[in-house]
């Protein structure tokens, strides 16, 4: 069950944020989310996030693209209407393969790239008319925000986060509709 109240601790420096994350993790508190204006190197490792598997999906999409290219051209050029076009051997796929390689390559890249991007959008829930999930507009400019759930430990958490160098601490009711 999700907590109804969360703490928003705001930082102004990514190094301070990194050490804060390590302290909070060491105290075994669960960090709900961190909002940063730019990628902070090593933050995912410090938070203990699982590595992404998007490269694996991309490889599989590439295999799909290669298969589409081969099946398509084998059907069109070899099976369906094997014409003699400028003396190119259309007796079997292998014999005429060098001519198909540019298309095989491009379709592999096309599938791998586009389907991976779409996978990324789906997994991170991004689309044109999506309502922004930003708890504080300053986090897109120069502030960092750590969100920690409260389970009847408000004062303890507040003092812990103060110690880690937070410049501002807000306790907010979590608005479920925003997600």
């Amino acid at each position, binding site marked *: 069950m999700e907590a109804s109240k969360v703490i928003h601790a705001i930082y102004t420096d990514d190094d301070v944020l990194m050490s804060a994350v390590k302290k909070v993790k060491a105290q075994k508190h669960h960090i709900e989310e961190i909002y940063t204006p730019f990628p902070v190197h090593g933050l995912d490792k410090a938070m203990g996030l699982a590595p992404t598997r998007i490269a694996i999906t991309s490889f599989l999409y590439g295999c799909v693209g290669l298969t589409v290219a081969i099946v398509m051209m084998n059907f069109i050029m070899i099976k369906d209407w094997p014409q003699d076009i400028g*003396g190119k051997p259309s007796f079997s796929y292998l014999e005429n393969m*060098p*001519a198909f390689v540019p298309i095989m390559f491009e379709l592999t890249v096309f599938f791998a790239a586009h389907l991976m991007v779409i996978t990324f959008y789906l997994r991170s829930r991004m689309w044109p008319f999506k309502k922004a999930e930003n708890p504080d507009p300053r986090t897109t400019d120069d502030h960092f925000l750590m969100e920690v759930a409260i389970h009847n430990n408000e004062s303890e958490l507040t003092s812990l986060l103060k110690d880690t160098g937070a410049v501002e601490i807000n306790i907010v009711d979590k608005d479920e509709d925003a997600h």
Partner: protein
Amino acid sequence: MEYKISNRLRMGAIIMMVLGLIGVVYGFIDSHSVTEANISEILASEHHDHGDAHATDMHTSGHTNEEHGETVAHTDEHHNDEAHGGLTHHEEHALHQIHNRPYAALYVGAFFFFMIALGVLAFYAIQYAAQAGWSPVLFRVMEGITSYVLPGGLIVLAIAFAADSHLFVWLKEGVTEVGHENYDKLVAGKSGWLNKTGFFIRGLIFLGGWSLYRHFSRKFSIAQDSASDNRNFKKNFRISAAFLVFYIYTESMMAWDWVMSVDPHWFSTLFGWYVFASMFVSGITVIAMITIYLKSKGLLEFVNDSHIHDLAKFMFGISIFWTYLWFSQFMLIWYSNIPEEVTYFVTRIEHYKLPFFGMLAMNFVFPLLLLMNSDYKRINWFVIMTGIVILCGHYLDVFNWIMPATVVGRWFIGMPEIGAILLFGGLFLLIVFTALGKASLFAKGNPFMKESEHFHY
């Protein structure tokens, strides 16, 4: 950080060289046991042994050879097996191919190891010119490998000098003389570039330039270790940038001279690049393998997994670059199918099907699938295993450049070829590991050293 070549390694290298030498000498004796006197019997027994199917095959190979391996002047009218010094044309060609084989095998082995050292030299210069922050911990390994550039290059030139027309048909007597039986109009037209004097003067200029850069770069690199300022580093940066300009011109010309000219009727524009890609990827592979070896001896604690990861990425990327160039050359020629240039691939596909397509699997498919995963690039034995396959693949690549033009259908990877690999492999190991022992493995004066030590990917 101090390394001294171990006695075991030195003995191993010397044993390799001795065994290799035996193989090479055997190759020469074996091929010269076939002479004008007994060639007819040997060919007859070949036909007899292999049956009729093979006999027909041998005839076709004679034809293909005449069309591009040797001279175009031999057109079909010369094919009627007219007697020529007591030998038929078929016998004469077979004799030439048998005699060429030990020279070609020696040349392939020598060029392969020389090419590795030169590829490393180019990589080293790029690291300096680009002011790379990750690679200075590997500089001494690279400097060790490049110590083979000068001896290796001189050996290649010496073999070219000794082999003469056994390798380069444009050196045949009378090729440029109108009216001579060997006269070849196409080759005569190229004699402004392809002549013996020019070949060796150019070869010495290329080699001189490369070794001068190598000499001074190594000198400044050592001097930087005990310097109080960065003057030596800056000098190295400047000469590296200048060397790269010199290198890219001379490497291309070297590829025409030392490799492409074995087929003097054929030419290709991107051949220089293709040769470059082959030497570059073999060079990087050898850097990775020697680094992993020295690291396993506990001599390179400052080299971490991320350095190996970067080298493996280069092995992966340049393998694909090599394939791109190989395919670009093959596909353009296959597609347009112009007789005068397509013969190059016809010979190779007809007689070298396995090495020609096999190297594609070894140089492309294997590294592509094994080194794609980021985690695998950090596993040392994975990098070594892929490296061995890549090196074997690029040996085959050199084999496919030289052999089809010199021995045509009479190729085999036997005593002469393996002997040459052992001979030059042993020499390469001996020279490289002796050079590695001459300076600290840690180039401590390099201004990027701190960054390189802490390099993390």
